[in-house]
């Protein structure tokens, strides 16, 4: 039975970068077990969390993601022995950097979800989606995308404000 779909004013876009060996299989398990999770999540499969470059996360936000999930194998379970250990350090550093430039870390979630944890996948995705829904759209990067250097913009906001203030 499908659960009743609730209508929301805002449907966040959530991008999930997952490793193929654990989390992708976990998400697959959730599906084949007919568990329900928010359709807001777009899953992108990678060989390993170690292959997930921080620039992908940045790009996702720039291109309109409201939330990003990065998920892979539990420590010790990496198909390539240590990919997730390296990823763990890299993302710890990247989080600090994003925080420092003023990105709200509540929009970025990391998790370990194994191939057997369909339930955990549902839980992680649902929690992130609902949290991001509560936060509203990620405006910062989208606004940035629309901004131009003054010399290229045909009427600068500053000019508009100036007209308003003078006349």
């Amino acid at each position, binding site marked *: 039975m499908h659960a009743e779909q609730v209508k929301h004013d805002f449907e966040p876009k959530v991008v999930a970068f997952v490793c193929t060996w654990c989390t992708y299989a976990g998400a697959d398990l959730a599906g084949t077990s007919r568990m329900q999770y928010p359709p807001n999540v777009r899953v992108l499969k990678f060989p390993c969390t170690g292959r997930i470059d921080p620039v992908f996360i940045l790009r996702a936000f720039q291109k309109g993601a409201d939330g990003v999930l990065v998920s892979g194998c539990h420590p010790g379970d990496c198909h390539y022995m240590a990919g997730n250990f390296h990823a763990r350090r890299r993302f710890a550093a990247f989080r600090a950097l994003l925080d420092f430039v003023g990105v709200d870390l509540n929009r970025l979630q990391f998790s370990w979800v194994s191939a057997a944890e369909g339930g955990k996948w549902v839980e992680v995705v649902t929690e992130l989606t609902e949290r991001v829904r509560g936060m509203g759209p990620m405006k910062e990067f989208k606004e940035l995308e629309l901004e*131009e*250097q*003054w*010399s*290229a913009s*045909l*009427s*600068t906001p*500053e*000019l508009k*404000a*100036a*007209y308003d*203030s*003078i*006349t």
Partner: protein
Amino acid sequence: MPQIITEANLRSLIDSLVKESKLVVGPKEAGSMVLYQPLSNGADLKLGALPRRSSKELFFPICEDILTFGKEDGVTKVKDVDRASFPDAVLIGALPCDAGSPSILDAVFSWDYNDDFYLERRKKSTIVGIACTSCDDACFCTAVGYAPDSPAGSDLFLTPLKDGSYACNAVTEKGEKLVSAHGSLFKEGAAADAAPLAAPDTAKLDLAKIKEWLNTHFEDPLWQSIADVCLGCGACAFICPACHCFDINDEGTPDHGTRRKHWDACGFGKFTNHASGHNPRDIQNKRYRNRIMHKFKYYDDKFGKTLCTGCGRCIRACPVGIDIGDILNKINVQAG
């Protein structure tokens, strides 16, 4: 009788122009530096300091859209940027080394192809230049044929007077129009003495001799000695009033995107990189040589002008202290 404008009236002129919906650009304080930026009122104008970047960006933006593309019903539609929507602009307070650059660049932007992005902006702009009263040890305008009171390129030229007002010299019709349209702000009268001008401490270069030397010294140990330390960044080119290279890039997705024209620099390793992987300027000294050759030989060969106004920005900005004034002096000496 010369026309005189007081400093208060100069600022009022900016207010009026803004009120007329003109884009008014002039030196403005921006954090730790002064930059040419849109002025929202007369009080914003900051005179007496050389802006960090030249004013070329009014005509040749750092980055501008030249078209957008998108898929509609499976068909890719291309939309041109409407050049008619470029604003009427007044550049106020441009120093001679900046005011002079557009008149050099007009030649290349209307040569084998009319770059109407540049030309349209240029057509719609009036340049109010101002004589320069301060300089530092990087300035060398007098060495390359400009001067702190050179009105070249200005439509209206202001000369600071000792009493704080400015003598106005309408150089072109555009400048005359600007004065007559705001006649009440200007008054006719005897000018007070002019304020002391900047006096850059450089000897005049013989540009013809330098060009002659460049004609015959494509290969020379000089290039190696400079390029050994050149980093290959674009700082010199980007803040230069006369450098005008650009790149064109498509950004976005195949379904939706923008074609953008943005500044590029001959110092970059990728500047001449061919799709094949071959790079005719594969090492830095060839790239640095091109910078000098282009400014003092190629542009002269083609258009009879030198691509340098002696503002000294590249000297101040170079992370490794490459000093174009020094290099020109060396060539001048070698040329005999």
